[in-house]
């Protein structure tokens, strides 16, 4: 079955509002779906229009009969939420992490969400080979978060509905990478990269540890590029991260820092 078939006399213009409708209904798949997701993150008008359609279609769900899930569903939700929270709290410096997370949440609540992501074109970023200065995860020291308002970035992970939460304390060498809810597939690791604003090569922020909030110590060459609006990308790599002298794997997610 070929795509555009000669049967159609009346060509319908597929403008952005149309694409948003198709996206909202769930008609898209493959590359088109990916492209729409990228657009959602980078184009506020498109995001607005997607919400517009969602809001109009949502009343249709009232026509769907409700149903009672079995009682174990809540038990499992509760267990997963508790496990995630405990993980975060036992990570490195529980009080600070929790306080910081709560501060970040409050800020996100107040500021609205879409503003949090200034994101470039999806899946088109070509990473340079041979990026060194991989930072070392350091779980021993407590992050100092009292001094300045942190920079936060949310990096939604492809079609999983999950995201990374990255928090950096300005003028420090401390960064928190939260990957709660992510699980390892046993075949890949995910590596986080900073995209310096000056166009210089991407800098590795290390391999993400699924299911944990990790504290990472960054070298000065990296911290000097950290700032409001600094972009992040996440790539899929072999276990252990990007091999030396090879191109990085595909970009699976991206986001940008915003000052809290």
């Amino acid at each position: 079955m070929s795509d555009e078939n000669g049967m159609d006399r009346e060509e319908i213009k597929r403008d952005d509002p149309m694409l948003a409708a198709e996206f909202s209904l769930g008609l898209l798949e493959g590359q088109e779906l990916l492209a729409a997701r990228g657009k959602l993150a980078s184009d506020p008008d498109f995001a607005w229009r997607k919400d517009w359609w969602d809001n109009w279609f949502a009343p249709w769900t009232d026509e769907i009969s409700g149903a009672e899930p079995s009682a174990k569903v809540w038990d499992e939700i509760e267990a997963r939420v508790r496990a995630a929270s405990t993980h975060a709290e036992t990570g490195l410096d529980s009080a600070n992490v929790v306080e910081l997370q709560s501060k970040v949440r409050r800020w996100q609540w107040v500021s609205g969400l879409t503003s949090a992501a200034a994101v470039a074109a999806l899946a088109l970023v070509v990473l340079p080979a041979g990026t060194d200065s991989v930072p070392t995860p350091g779980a021993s020291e407590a992050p100092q978060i009292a001094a300045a308002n942190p920079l936060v970035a949310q990096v939604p992970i492809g079609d999983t509905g999950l995201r990374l939460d990255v928090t950096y304390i300005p003028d420090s060498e401390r960064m928190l990478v939260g990957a709660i809810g992510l699980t390892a597939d046993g075949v890949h690791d995910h590596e986080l990269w900073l995209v310096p604003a000056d166009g210089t090569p991407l800098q590795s922020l290390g391999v993400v540890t699924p299911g944990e909030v990790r504290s990472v110590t960054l070298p000065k060459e990296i911290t000097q590029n950290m700032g409001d609006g600094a972009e992040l990308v996440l790539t899929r790599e072999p276990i252990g991260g990007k091999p030396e002298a090879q191109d990085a794997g595909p970009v699976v997610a991206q986001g940008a820092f915003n000052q809290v």
Partner: protein
Amino acid sequence: MADGPTPASAEAREALKAAMARLAEGDRSALEDIYRATRVKLFGICLRILGDRKEAEDALQDVYVNLWQRADRYDPTRASPISWLATFARNRAIDRLRTGKVRGGAVPVEEAAPLPDQAQLADSLMVDAEQTAQIHTCIEGLDENARGHIRAAFFDGKTYAELAEHADVPLGTMKSWIRRGLQRLRACLEASE
């Protein structure tokens, strides 16, 4: 969890709104309140899209765990909580369909628009009566072909390709039927705003 029906009342909506705000503040107990108030509706949506109880329960779990992790994503200025949650649940169910783990779309297209079961409806939080009326008016204005396929996309999570295959027409034909419908739908909805 075996609470009675959740009335589609203003109080219920306000309570849900408050619980969403608490959740965004990191209050874990808010999640249980939200679950109690919305599980019946959201599970119905997952079940409808996925057509399989086990899959739908897994999807439902993901919905609430994700909600906990990403409560900040909800913007009260853009949508009512129940509207947003219903959309969120439907999207999660469709994501699950698209990952290929599920066969999905167990309900044939012909049955895509069953009459609502009034008894069941009373048990779940409704989205918005006024908006419901308007979308109905506008969708009724479309020709039967476009209407049927747009609804099948919504209720069964069908892609263009699946709809075309089912209707046994070329993909391009299906796209132009639906796009023509969406164009009219948009004009009608915008005129009502």
